[in-house]
């Protein structure tokens, strides 16, 4: 196979791999952030669901 490949193929491949690795690392960091946002959003969603219950409880205490 090496007979058919031009000289310095390894260096060219390495340069392009560096570029793709950088983009990939950036995407992984973005994916991690996205996962954190998703987690935080579901926490906030639960908080929002509990908020009316808390309001009802407070109103009940006031009416007594």
């Amino acid at each position: 196979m090496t007979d058919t490949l031009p000289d310095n193929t390894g260096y060219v491949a390495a340069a392009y791999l560096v570029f793709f690795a950088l983009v990939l690392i950036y995407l992984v960091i973005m994916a991690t952030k996205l996962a954190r946002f998703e987690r935080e959003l579901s926490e906030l969603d639960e908080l929002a669901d509990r908020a009316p219950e808390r309001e009802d409880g407070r109103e009940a205490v006031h009416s007594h």
Partner: protein
Amino acid sequence: MLYATRLRALSILTAVTLTAGFALAFFYAPMDADQGFMQKIFYVHVPLAIVALCGFIFGGIMAIQHLRTGDSRYDLRSYVAIHLSLVLGAGVLITGSIWAKASWGHWWVWDEPTLVSFLIIFLLYATYQPLRFSIEDPERQGRYASVFAIVAGAFVPLNFLAVRLAQSYTHPRVFATTDGGLPAKMQLPFYLCLIGMALLFATLWRYEMASKNTSAKLRSLRRKLAGDEAVAPRGRSAAPSVGTGS
């Protein structure tokens, strides 16, 4: 401003342009008579370098806007642009070293103005984040960082000038003025790669801005739903604080 708007279209356009550019570089552009196959590194290395340097200048322009208006959103835009340019700059140095090794037999050549001036710019901007981190007061941090970004941004064009004025011709001349410059069949792939790289910068910049905005909005929402005590104090950070009104 919603940075995630039309982000999908931009991402697709980036992927298509870069893929087409690289495909043309390998299958359409002729083999360089002098350097042979290793000249293909040019199509990733040079666009990366141009976009990284333009990103630094963009960061400087945003910093001018920040000082002019006092709007912290410009500080964030400047910060993200410089942060991203540093990442691309690291890519430039690594791909450049690989090309140097393949072409000259050395990973680095100290008497080559293009390389050294790029390294100086990279190292200069590498101090940007520590500078920000060293200042606790967010307003002062933004102001000092903007002054830094403007001064350093003005220094960037010197890198382009260094390439032109350099007497040494060790570094490959790709836009030569005397012997015709880049052949026409190399120009199309090169410009496509350059546009693709600029689009990649724009896409990643918008992703990062959208991420910072979302994070700030989540904090604000948590504060509204659970009160101030539910939100951990921000603490010292190099990143600018984001207002939720953006």
